[in-house]
């Protein structure tokens, strides 16, 4: 079995400054990788590189096992532009299909059906005609997750999916992500929350002064939890 995503000798940074050196890890189908690390350790840079928004300084990112590089769904952090964007939930979810459209100007019936199905999967069918800016933070995250599901059937990259959500909604969100993972979608999640990372993830990538990559069990055995457990 080949890995869906392989990072080999990856060096990351911007403006010529290196922030991550010689990073190596692989993700296989169905895994749940949680990337943890302090602010400024390069989590977002790593994510942008995996998504192809930024070029690595050196090293390479390979996709395999039937995954192509634009089939990675992405749940970004919310931007200011989106806060007051006049668009309905359906419009936004449907826009997730755009990547597959290429030069074709309009969406096909199948794509529209897919958007409806993903809206249903996220349990927001009753909100489909509502305006995005009127929704609560948790509901907005579900909308963006549904959009990401339109762009991929294989791998999702989540950037701090629970930031700004209250504890109850946070739990629901983690539950939802876990369900999707059990359905066979590979998850890469960026998080501050090491506690939850250990609860849900199968693998941990800790970046910062020391770099760790391995399964959750290895991470705990390695003492990663005790040295960083206080940071939540």
């Amino acid at each position, binding site marked *: 079995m080949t890995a869906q995503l392989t990072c080999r000798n990856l060096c990351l940074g911007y403006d010529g400054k290196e922030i991550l050196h010689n990073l190596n890890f692989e993700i296989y189908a169905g895994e749940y990788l949680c990337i943890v690390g302090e602010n400024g350790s390069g989590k977002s840079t790593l994510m942008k590189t995996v998504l192809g928004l930024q070029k690595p300084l050196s090293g390479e990112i390979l996709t395999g096992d039937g995954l192509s590089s634009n089939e990675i769904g992405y749940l970004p952090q919310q931007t200011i532009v989106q806060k007051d964007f*006049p668009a309905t939930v359906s419009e936004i979810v449907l826009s997730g299909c755009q990547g597959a459209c290429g030069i074709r100007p309009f969406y096909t019936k199948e794509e529209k059906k897919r958007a409806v199905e993903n809206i249903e999967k996220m349990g927001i069918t009753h909100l489909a005609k509502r305006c995005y800016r009127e929704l609560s933070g948790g509901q907005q995250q579900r909308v963006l997750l549904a959009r990401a599901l339109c762009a991929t059937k294989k791998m999702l990259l989540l950037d701090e999916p629970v930031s700004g959500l209250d504890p109850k909604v946070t739990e629901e969100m983690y539950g939802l992500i876990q369900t999707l993972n059990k359905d066979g979608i590979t998850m890469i999640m960026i998080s501050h929350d090491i506690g939850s990372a250990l609860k849900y993830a199968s693998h941990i990538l800790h970046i910062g002064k020391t770099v760790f990559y391995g399964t959750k069990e290895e991470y705990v055995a390695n003492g990663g939890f005790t040295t960083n457990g206080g940071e939540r």
Partner: protein
Amino acid sequence: MELLEKLSFYFTYPFVRYALIVGVLISLCSSLLGVTLVLKRFSFIGDGLSHVAFGAMAIAAVVGLTNDMLIVLPITIVCAVLLLRTGQNTKIKGDAAVAMISVGALAIGYLIMNIFSTSSNLSGDVCTTLFGSTSILTLTKTEVWLCIVLSLIVVAAFFFFYNKIFCVTFDESFSKATGTKTEIYNLIIAVIIAVIIVLAMNLVGSLLISALVIFPALSAMRMFKSFKSVTVCSAVLSVFCSSLGILVSVLFGTPVGSTIVAVDIVAFICSTVIGKIAGGVRK
């Protein structure tokens, strides 16, 4: 009744009909892109680019080109592309870049006009370019046709790229990550905007173009909740306001550009009130 008679009398003149046709087309085009620009936080790009077009016009006037479109359009397109290139490695960010180019072009344009101009009524010339006071009433048949063709291209481009423009506006990184060629669509948006602005300079002059771009979009955003309805409403509102503005200015002899903008402002206030009332009812 008297007004209607006066109006039908004015409509026997071709220049009034031309003005109305051009006005409607330009306001339609500008409002379509307005929604995207406002949401992308580029409200002021209209202002910036129109000043660039003003500077280019000054150069054209000095060089003595009879058809200044040849020089104005390319320069404006280049600036639009540079401004909208929202790459991560741009050193001067959005609003500052717009402000810089805007003021810079205005100053250079005026300077050039002042140094090289042969016209005796310099301040009048500048005022005309800035406020477009009468140029819309002196349109030639060729200009009207040019305007019709360019507008058709703009509307067609907007129609075919509607879904892509939505994606690029709502979330550029997501679109790029999932395989949409965002650079190309940003480029298309930039070119369309430049074309619209050069067209619109005839109508309201370079100082008031921003109004045509942002007012209908803002008004529509007060009242509607989906991107499609906002776009359609913005287009309808813009066409309505411009037609009304042109008619009023013809009837009462007020300056065309500022009358249209005044009507737009009134429409914005009405939409805000309507939006508030509708929002209150729903809650």
